[in-house]
């Protein structure tokens, strides 16, 4: 990682460390990389999109896990109830 000299923060991409715990430490402000350019487009709306997608993926993963448990229960019931008993 190349360390650049501190530049004056510009209004578009520049950032100053808001977290003043670290202000004594000199944090080099780099040029935005490709990932940042993507995320900061549209007034940073894509950051919100990323957050919503993370939540959605997390909840979907949880639904998959619940589904696996339902599968296990179905197999257990199949093993315990013979075919004659469950036929309607």
């Amino acid at each position, binding site marked *: *990682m190349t360390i650049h000299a501190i530049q004056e923060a510009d*209004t578009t*991409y*520049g*950032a100053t*460390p*808001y*977290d*003043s*715990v*670290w202000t004594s430490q000199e*944090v*080099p*402000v*780099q*040029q*935005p*990389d490709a990932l*940042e350019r993507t*995320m*900061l487009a*549209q*007034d*940073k*709306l894509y*950051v*919100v999109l*990323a*957050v*919503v997608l*993370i*939540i959605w993926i*997390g*909840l979907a993963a*949880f639904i998959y896990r*619940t589904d696996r*448990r*339902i599968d296990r*229960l179905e197999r*257990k*019931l199949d*093993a*315990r*109830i*013979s075919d004659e008993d469950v036929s309607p």
Partner: protein
Amino acid sequence: MATPGKTYKRLRNIVLAWLTLVVLGGFLLDIPRINILEHTARNLYFHVPMWFTMMAAFFVSAWHSARYLSSLDRVRDTRALEAARVGAIFGILGLVTGIVWARFTWYVGQGIWWNFDPKQTMAAVQLLIYGAYFTLRASVEEPEKRARIAAVYNLFAAACVPFLLYVLPRQMESLHPGAEGNPAFSDITHPIMRVVFYAAVIGFIGLFWVLYTQRVRLAALNERADDIPES
């Protein structure tokens, strides 16, 4: 209850429709433009309710653990476990969304994914405490003993929540509102944003309730299946 399934279905449909409206409102309603924050202020509707939901879930979990200790009813143990599990999911989502939000808002140009913000760190510690709850459960074989030890530990874990998420982070400087030098949430937030935010909190807590109820029903069915003698 005569028709528990009916109440559940009605509430579930309301929760899902409600959350759909929250997402629509979260993206479509106009919000004041603030430098640095810009549109990421909308994350207030998604990141913060994760934590409120996690706390509500852990509270439900602790309540059932306390009830377990006084009643020794196994249903209480199941409810405590499932509430803690869904709560931990919301906590992890809150942590990850917080990392992404900070990375592309305050830490732009610095490439920092994790800056040991006090609230972030304490929340991670809190999740580890709950991780130990699940590990503890997995390590005890006998159901009675497991339920009792887990219930006592769960009460300790829940007692940590207010200290780790409110008392300690507010003593230190942090990106989060209410911390040293930062105004509290209610002083700075636009009225429209507050409406959507509270709606989102209610919606996500409702979603927790739906997922938690599904899990509890499934666990109850599993126990009934265990009671069937093997053919």
